[in-house]
């Protein structure tokens, strides 16, 4: 049996298990087991133990529970209320006015949180009722919240990036740094669309509120100082290379606890809830990573990724064509799978292909994160749609429709980073030196 046949059989088994609702981690491990036993004739049990132990007992991976816990703590503070109050007075003269609080709020919360659903839920909880109360357009508000929430995984820290870095064996800090500029570009695109829409529909934007004096604006924004300090702290630590990603994450937790204390939200219950939540979420992700490690062992023994990469190379696709096909593939996958599973599932097979075609592993990380963001707002299983559906009672398809213009911004952003890869590579190269 040749390698292509083996890979088709394994792919078939995996798809059947996935579609049948077997847990992702268990599906990966079962496929790995079958591959090893049937085709590689290697002892499958020892491999299972080594893969699971090696994957979980990892110093690098310890950053994951820390970053998750940090987000969980902040999720339980008044940060989002403070953010809305602090941002609102500055936006009076911008076309679109308070509508931009969704984009800015998500961008700022995204730089302390690593999750898209949590960012979307946190900002929407405050911004949505405030915007609707003041008479802003509901469609734009919903669309921008659903899509801007995904900034949580593009702007570091990001759980998705940690998972990608571990799966691709790349530097977490380098990928974090690479996310800053695309994150800013995306925020500009989102805000640009809101401004353009508001200029075209002036009747749908409520009148400006009474202008505060400069001093009052500063006073109102005082609430944002703790959060700004935390962001500044994380950025400086990352940029200066003072700490490893894990240490940086631990200090992030310390900072978040300080913010929670300062806003008097750190009850014993909140503390325990955030810790238990973080433990469960980390466990879920690490279980998937362990299953994937076992499957990649099978891949290494059967040589599927190498063969596939060579086969793709013989197709003589231009790099843009390859990227285009992969983008479509991920958009399709994203309609059915969550982002973490999507990355872990594909990285062993897709990465050799991409590297052979001359793309950088860090660049591809940002590319894939942007595609995961798209997946979060595409029905039927876009998670941000689901979050807003639960919060507003609106149907997921209505929200997906409202996000279409912002979806287009995401696609445009993918185009920009593909044509100008420097937007991704510049910051990490300047700060950490060009990678060998």
């Amino acid at each position, binding site marked *: 049996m040749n390698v292509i046949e083996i890979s088709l059989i394994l792919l078939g088994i995996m798809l059947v298990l996935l*579609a*049948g*609702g*077997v*847990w*992702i*981690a*268990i599906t990966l491990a*079962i496929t790995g087991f079958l591959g090893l036993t049937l085709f590689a004739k290697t002892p499958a*049990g*020892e491999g*299972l133990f080594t893969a*699971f*132990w090696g994957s*979980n*007992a*990892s*110093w690098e*991976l*310890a950053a994951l*529970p*820390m970053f998750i*816990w940090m*987000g*969980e703590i902040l999720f*339980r503070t008044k940060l989002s209320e403070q953010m809305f109050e602090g941002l609102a007075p500055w936006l009076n003269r911008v076309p679109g006015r308070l509508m931009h609080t969704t984009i800015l709020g998500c961008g700022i919360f995204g730089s302390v949180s690593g*999750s*898209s*659903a*949590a960012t*979307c*839920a946190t900002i929407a*909880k405050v911004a949505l009722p405030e915007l609707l109360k003041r008479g802003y357009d509901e469609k734009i508000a919903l669309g921008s919240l659903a899509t801007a929430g995904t900034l949580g995984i593009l702007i570091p820290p990001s759980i998705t990036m940690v998972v990608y870095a571990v799966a691709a064996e790349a530097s977490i800090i380098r990928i974090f740094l690479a996310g800053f500029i695309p994150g800013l570009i995306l925020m500009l695109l989102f805000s640009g669309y809101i401004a353009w829409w508001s200029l075209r529909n002036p009747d749908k934007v409520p009148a400006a509120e009474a202008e505060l004096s400069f001093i009052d604006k500063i006073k109102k924004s005082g609430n944002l100082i703790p959060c700004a300090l935390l962001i500044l702290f994380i950025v400086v630590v990352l940029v200066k290379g003072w700490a490893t990603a*894990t*240490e940086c994450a*631990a200090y992030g*937790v*310390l900072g978040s606890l300080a913010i929670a204390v300062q806003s008097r939200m750190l009850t014993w219950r909140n503390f325990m809830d955030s*810790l*238990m*939540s*973080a*433990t*469960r979420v*980390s*466990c*879920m992700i*690490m279980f*998937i990573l*362990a299953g994937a490690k076992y499957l990649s062992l099978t891949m290494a023994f059967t040589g599927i990724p190498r063969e596939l990469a060579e086969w793709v190379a013989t197709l003589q696709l231009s790099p843009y064509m390859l990227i285009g096909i992969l983008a479509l593939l991920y958009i399709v996958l994203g309609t*059915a799978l*969550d982002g*973490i*599973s999507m990355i872990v599932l594909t990285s062993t097979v897709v990465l050799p292909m991409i590297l052979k075609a001359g793309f950088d592993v860090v660049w591809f990380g940002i590319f894939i994160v942007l595609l995961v963001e798209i997946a979060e707002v595409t029905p*039927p*299983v876009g*998670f941000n749609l689901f*979050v807003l559906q*639960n*919060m507003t009672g609106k149907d997921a398809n209505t929200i997906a429709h409202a996000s279409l213009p912002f979806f287009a911004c995401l696609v445009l952003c993918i185009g920009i980073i593909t044509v100008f890869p420097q937007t991704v590579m510049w910051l990490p190269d300047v700060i950490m030196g060009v990678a060998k």
Partner: protein
Amino acid sequence: MPNTLRRSLDWLYNAAGFLAAFFVFAIFAVMIASSLMRELSIKTGGIEDLVAWLCAAAAFLAMPHAFKHGDFVRMELLISRLGAPRRRTFEIGGLAFGVAFCTYLAFWAIRMTWGSYEYGVMSDGLLVLPIWIPQLSFVLGAVLLLIAMTDEFVCVLMGRRPVYVTAVEERHARGDFSEDI
């Protein structure tokens, strides 16, 4: 199922979950402590090994609790469209695969860790310790996950809806999305 059995099983999963949470907290404490010690130029050799083991312990011990809590992700696109009776068939099928895999995982966790103990294998990093001690968390987590899977399998066979489904429904109804990435 008798009430005491139900209660003691749930207690077991939760206890393992709390222990895992303690290890997450320990990662935090050790990281902060080690960076302070480095500033005071106290040697911190072996910290990386210690943190790696804490991370493994947190991951393994939380498994039964996270599973019961509905945190393990899967593709629900198709099964969520089925009617209740057919959906139940798929849940039972999925749990059967789960039980089979967990049995295999627990068996090999025990066998390999026992091997480490029997041959006195030491860890090969800076922190030298019999490796079976940290590996014990793998054994404990895998065995408890097997128990939790089997427990759920039996309950669903007896006609109850899976608790990993109802737990998520309740959480989302409260508007709590903190556990979704």
